[in-house]
Each structure stands twice: as structure tokens, then as C-alpha cells.
């Protein structure tokens, strides 16, 4: 596969020939990808290129039409029926952060983070709350524990969303344009939390338009267009010396913004 350098060991995530079509529009056209534990992969590309769809296939928010997805040794074949138990096991190992945060507005920040722990991992309320507070501390929002999400800024909400996903001790974190809905300043505080997470060794796949973040933090950069990976490699070399014309066009469009 394109002669890309691969870290040793079994990949924690493997996508094999993943294909997904929406009403004749091919969003993922046979994409294969390995992600090693601890690796940070950034995916860039024009809108409609299929990067979000690919990400959503990883935790089966979208069920691929064909292909195979293996998360932490657990394979899922498209087309076959996925049992609820397998689905739950898969999603417990994969955390996801959305562009629109999707916090639960009727619950406090603390309950947002604790409820899934109680329901999914069976933690007691006290244990869950302790873990939630530690994570809120980590993302700098301990003071907001009792607040409702709508009383928080977008950047704060997104940091809570990250804490909520981390609370389930995922093996992989997926970020779907986590800063696209935020003012640049608020985006920075989210990016700094993500940077910290990467430094701690979390395996991350980040769909983003933040080229600087991709170059600084990611180990591997993937460029997608028309449902395919058109170029990939070390972020610096891809950004500074793109080989595919389509990549060049896209990168200059982003820089000119």
C-alpha cells in the first residue's frame, strides 16, 4: 500500500477495502488503512471526499457496504449481521468526538461524563463521578462540573465531549472536525487538549482542516478525494512536497482562506 512506513506490531485498527455508497454517491471507494497503537493519523480533503464517512465506518455509525474493519483484534465484516453485543464491545473501545459536540443538554457537565460510565462500564456513581472530575481537571473544566452544557462556550463543550469519550477508556479516539464549529480562539483550547492526549500516547484519527495541527501532532497524514486516499505519508513531506496535483490544489485552497 503505497510503500508507507508502518510501525511494528499488529495494527490496533485495520480497514480493508471499505466501501460505502449513499444513493449512488460513493463516499468510501475501497479504502484500506492500518493504524498502530499510539499513532496519530490526520485525514484531510475537500468536503464530500468521504473522510467523515470513513471515520464513521470505524465505529459503525455508518455500516459499510463491503469490506472489513478490525478494531483491537475484533473483526467486523460488512454485509454480515453484527450482534448488539459485538457492536457495544466495538463502540466501547472507540471514542468519538463530533463537530457539533452533541453533549446531552438536559444533564450537567458532570452527568454527561458519568452517565455513560455507569451504563456502559457498570461503574458506581461515586466511581464514575471521581473519574469524571479527574478528566474535567485534565481538560481544565473542573469548575464547570455542575453547569449545563448550554451555559458553556463551544470550546468548553467540546472539551467536555472529549472528557466524556475518554471516560470510557477507549483504545482509539475519533475526531470528526472537532474545531470546525468553533471560533479560532476556542478551537485552540480544544487543539491543545488533543495535543496533550496525543503526547500521552492515545491512538487518534482526526478529520480536520487544521493543517498546522496535522503537521505538528500527526504521525501520518492522509489526503482523501472522491472516497479514496489519494496521497499519504509523513505530514511534513505531504504538506511541503505534495506529489498529487489534487493535493496541491486542496492545500493551496486551505492556505488562501
Amino acid at each position, binding site marked *: 500500500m503505497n510503500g508507507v512506513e508502518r510501525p511494528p506490531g499488529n495494527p490496533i485498527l485495520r480497514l480493508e477495502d471499505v466501501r460505502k455508497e449513499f444513493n449512488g454517491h460513493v463516499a468510501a471507494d475501497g479504502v484500506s488503512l492500518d493504524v498502530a497503537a499510539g499513532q496519530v493519523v490526520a485525514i484531510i480533503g475537500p468536503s464530500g471526499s468521504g473522510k467523515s464517512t470513513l471515520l464513521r465506518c470505524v*465505529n459503525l455509525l455508518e455500516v459499510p457496504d463491503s469490506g472489513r474493519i478490525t478494531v483491537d483484534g475484533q473483526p467486523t465484516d460488512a454485509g454480515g449481521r453484527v450482534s448488539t453485543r459485538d457492536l457495544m464491545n466495538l463502540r*466501547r473501545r472507540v471514542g468519538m468526538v463530533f463537530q457539533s459536540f452533541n453533549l446531552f443538554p438536559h444533564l450537567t457537565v458532570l452527568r454527561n461524563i458519568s452517565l*455513560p460510565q455507569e451504563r456502559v462500564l457498570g461503574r458506581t456513581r461515586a466511581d464514575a463521578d471521581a473519574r469524571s472530575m479527574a478528566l474535567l481537571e485534565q481538560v481544565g473544566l473542573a469548575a464547570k462540573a455542575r453547569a449545563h452544557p448550554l451555559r458553556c462556550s463551544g470550546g468548553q463543550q467540546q472539551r467536555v465531549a472529549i472528557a466524556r469519550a475518554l471516560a*470510557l477508556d477507549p483504545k482509539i479516539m475519533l475526531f470528526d472536525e472537532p474545531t470546525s464549529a468553533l471560533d479560532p480562539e476556542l478551537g485552540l483550547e480544544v487543539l491543545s487538549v488533543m495535543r496533550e492526549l496525543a503526547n500521552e500516547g492515545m491512538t487518534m484519527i482526526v478529520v480536520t482542516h487544521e493543517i498546522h495541527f496535522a503537521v505538528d501532532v500527526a504521525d501520518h497524514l492522509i489526503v482523501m478525494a472522491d472516497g479514496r486516499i489519494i496521497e499519504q505519508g509523513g505530514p511534513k513531506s505531504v504538506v511541503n512536497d505534495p506529489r498529487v496535483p489534487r493535493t496541491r490544489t486542496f492545500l493551496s485552497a486551505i492556505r488562501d482562506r
Partner: protein
Amino acid sequence: MDHVGPILAAAPVTLGVTAAIFVVGALLGVVLVTGRRSGNRVIRSTARTAIDVLRGLPPIVFLFIVFFGIGSGAIRLSPIEAAVIGLGLITAAHMAEIYRGSLLAVGPGQFEASQALGLSRTTTYLRVIGPQAIRVAVPSMITWAISLLKDSALVSTIGVAEIMSVTNQDARSSGSSLTPFVIAAIVYIALGTPLAFLSRFLERRLSLSVRS
């Protein structure tokens, strides 16, 4: 002659019948909306047809079908039973539509976040979607309850001794038509007004954006 006494005495019947119809409708509405959103096509279209038919019928026609048609055949139904079943089913269809709209208002992001976190379907509905949807649904539900309180006058036609039925008898026996009906009107308004206030109060109370 005392018109007020007997009419007021019938008020609890009106309230009780209305409450029973509402409770039956609110609960059966959950069943209907669950069917309406089912992944199974047969269940889904059955529920949709039931909702459309119940909403499309004039309530008095359905009431007569239940009471005179079904209720006088193999199963014997008292007027009150027929009233609660008949109007309860019609209410259920409307509730199902109110619930459906409220669930849609919650938005797909909340479902996706719940799925991504690995919450079960039950937990998703009980802890995440339901509490948000009910906030959207409550004002419409109370509006329906107010209509129901007034439209319960309909069940006088099958002999339930509620406000309208008692007023009718009073008017006939006393020979005075205006006074009894004006009294009935005042009683209906007096019963309905608190509900309107409750609706406005809950609307403010349940709004998520105003909470601190």
C-alpha cells in the same frame, strides 16, 4: 330553580372521563409511536395506518362505532368504558404524532452521540432522548388535554352523565335554555383555564435554554 348545583355536580365526571381518556391516550401513544418508528416495515406501516385512520375519523363516528357497534355486541361496554376506549384511541393517535415530532426535534446528533458511547437503545431513549423530547411534547400535550376537556361533551351522546348531558336534561326539564348552557360554558372555562396556566408555566420551566 337551581341550575348551578346539578351542573357543578357533574364536573367531576367530566374531569374524570377527560383524565382517563388522556392517560389511556398518552400511554397508547407511546406504543403507537414505537411502532411508527420500528425497524420492521410491517409494524411501521400498520402503526402509520392506525394513526392515520384514527386521526381521520370524526370522533363522534368512532365513538358510535365503539359504543353502538362493538359495545353492544359480544362485548358489553358501559358508556364510560366506550368513551374512554373510543376517545382514548383517537387521543393516542394524536399523542403518537406529538411524540414523533418531539423525537425528531431532539435531532440526530443526540442519537449518534449515544450510539458512539455504546449506550443501549433503552438507555438512549430513557435517559437521553426521552427527557429532551418530553420538554418539547408537554405544551402540545396540554393543549390537547384542554381540547379534550371541551370535546368530552361529545360523550353525552352515548349517555355519560357529564356536564353537557346534565345541562341538557336541566334545560329540557326547566324549560329555560339560555341559563343552563351559559352556566355550563362558565364551568368549562373555569376547568380549562388552570390547564392553560399550567401549560405556560411548564413551558417556561422545561425550556433548556433558560436553565442555569
